[in-house]
């Protein structure tokens, strides 16, 4: 997928009222707003539920909940610059991010809402491309966008567009991720290479850009989770390590479960180019964001089966065990370094900054 869309090639099915860029009026609720919905969002997201264009969308999920299924809800907001980057766009993140939040509870994602806060001056063509990418991501993930909202803010506020998506899913009966406590002897798995997404963004970021074949790993993971649960229903915990990277998730897990976690530096999967880019900027791949990976804490004796199931799935080919849960140093994550030393992995403080020292 190209990093930046070819806006000129965008062919609108019906002509807009001659506004190539978003103006304040598009958020006003009147004719211009309808235009935006009719000509940008509906063509992308169209489905019977959405097309009714009610203030709210009524859904019958009784069948999905039958037999003890439970509702899963999630929401997330997406703020990223640039809007289009190697391997993806804000649209992909907005769909897959929320889908993955649901998947981490073992939920099967069904429906999404989509709220847009658009900056005055954004090219309609760009907005339409974002919508198109969301639609593609939604189709790939098997979810439908069934209701939404648009607002427009003044130029200078909004980074192009901010998107919020809320997701509704169903946790099938018998699935209880996160119910069984994490305990010493459990194994920590990673579904694949770490740091791809964050470094893909970094590679096009002003002041830091570099050339590399690093693409965002944005992907919907519920299929992978289903395969994992089929291999072993007793998975203790799932986390998608987005902002703050794997380090943040691991420290959170150790803190919440009050256990120690040990990870092996040599087991952590990182693509060579991601590793090289991190070297240049002085970044730690464990602190770099991922958008298509998960960490799983699983019973020790089930690790091999679960890994086999993961590796058979397209989003788990590089799955590997990266560590284990221990009694020592409760609430702390310790890494065994490549040369045989140890270091504590602290909770990252905030945005990781490239350094010169």
């Amino acid at each position, binding site marked *: 997928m190209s990093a930046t869309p070819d806006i000129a090639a965008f062919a609108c099915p019906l002509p807009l009222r001659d506004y190539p860029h978003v103006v304040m009026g598009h958020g006003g609720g009147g004719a211009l707003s309808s235009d935006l919905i009719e000509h940008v969002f509906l063509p992308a997201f169209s489905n019977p539920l959405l097309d009714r264009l009610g203030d709210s969308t009524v859904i019958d999920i009784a069948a999905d909940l039958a037999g003890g299924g439970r509702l899963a809800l999630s929401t997330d907001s997406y703020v990223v610059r640039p809007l289009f980057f190697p391997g993806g766009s804000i649209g992909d993140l907005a769909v897959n991010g929320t889908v993955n939040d649901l998947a981490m509870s073992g939920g099967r994602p069904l429906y999404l809402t989509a709220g847009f806060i658009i900056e005055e001056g954004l090219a309609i063509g760009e907005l339409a491309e974002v919508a198109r990418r969301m639609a593609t991501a939604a189709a790939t993930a098997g979810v439908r966008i069934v209701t939404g909202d648009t607002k427009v803010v003044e130029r200078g506020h909004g980074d192009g567009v901010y998107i919020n998506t809320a997701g509704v899913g169903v946790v099938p009966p018998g699935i209880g991720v996160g119910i069984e406590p994490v305990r010493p002897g459990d194994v920590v798995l990673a579904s694949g290479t770490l740091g791809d997404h964050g470094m893909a963004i970094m590679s096009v970021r*002003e*002041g*830091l850009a570099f050339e590399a074949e690093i693409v965002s790993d944005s992907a919907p993971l519920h299929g992978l989770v289903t395969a994992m649960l089929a291999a072993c229903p007793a998975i203790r915990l799932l986390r998608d390590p987005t902002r703050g990277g794997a380090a943040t998730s691991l420290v959170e897990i150790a803190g919440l479960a009050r256990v120690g976690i040990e990870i092996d530096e*040599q087991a952590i999967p990182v693509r*060579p180019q991601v*590793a*090289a880019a991190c*070297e240049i*900027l*002085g970044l730690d791949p464990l602190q770099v964001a991922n958008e298509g990976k998960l960490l799983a804490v699983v019973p020790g004796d089930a690790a091999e089966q679960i890994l086999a199931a993961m590796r058979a799935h397209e989003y788990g080919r590089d799955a590997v065990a990266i560590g284990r849960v221990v009694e020592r*140093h409760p609430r*702390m994550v*310790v890494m065994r*370094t*490549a*040369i*045989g*030393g*140890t*270091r*504590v992995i*602290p909770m990252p*403080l905030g945005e990781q*900054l*490239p*350094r*010169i*020292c």
Partner: protein
Amino acid sequence: MKHLTEYRDADTARRLAAEIGRIATRPWAIMEVCGGQTHSIIRNGVDQLLPPEVELIHGPGCPVCVTPLETIDRALAIAATPGVIFCSFGDMLRVPGSRGNLFSVKGLGGDIRLVYSPLDAVKLAQAHPDREVVFLAIGFETTAPANAMAVKLAKQQGLKNFSMLVSHVLVPPAIEAIMRSPGNRVNAFLAAGHVCSVMGTWQYPPLAERFRVPIVVTGFEPIDLLEGIRRTVLQLEQGRHELENAYARVVSERGNEPAQRVIAEVFTAGDRAWRGIGVIPASGWRLADAYRDHDAEIRFAVGGITAVESSLCKAGEVLQGTLKPNQCPAFGKECTPRTPLGATMVSSEGACAAYYNAGRWSDSGAA
């Protein structure tokens, strides 16, 4: 990555550590004066592989930690000036001034840009002729060639809107100050490999001689560090105090002469206050008179800077190796990575941050 991964080999590390254990018969305290080396030691757990006889003291090698408070305050004031595009390396963004840091200035509307290279700041000045572009040029000798080239190019191109706030610090005067300070325990130094790749090694033999300390030029990867330590311990055990180069693939005796020439043209030496330590004579570089027009300190006469250091902060003693971070009364209480009182708690290679992050677990090794 070639010339990198080979120096991270676990087997070689083990063998080097065993060799150090074999030759060390008495306690020795070795100081590294390079934040990059401190970072690598902690990040890789190098100190844990050492025998109990060998103690590593982390010296004032982090430019983030030693940039004078007044300079930080001046930077914050300039960054807050309307219309200014303020450029900085990432390391400096969280360093606390008397009130706030560059992040908080950004929060209040300052246009702060993170750059990887000083040349990026020059490009910004070219792209925004209507804005004042200021670059915070800090660092040891390693970064001086880059900073010098940036302002040299700006001057050549007549970029009137580009200026630098300069605060360079130098290693040899720091070594001298450490050796002269009361309570000093340092027996030997690992010299900063990349500083020496620029400046050469010729400045160090007189120091080794005068203070009777081995000085071993050392690299940054775990194997390089262990090898540097090995050679240092060997010298100590054998009663030698010489300059040795354990990073010969990158460092030569004369160093990078084209870089030294540009440095001499652009900068001039002077006394410099090191945060937490005090004034060390002739230990810093500022812009030469020929570059007055690009000196942000002159261009932005930000007056009324009264640098107020936290009275609780003992970073100075930590930097000189006379106090361990966990011996500071404020450590872990008023002073934590989230609420740092001083730069040594902010910087990723600051000794205090390193201790804090490892502090809740048993401190193995000689740390």
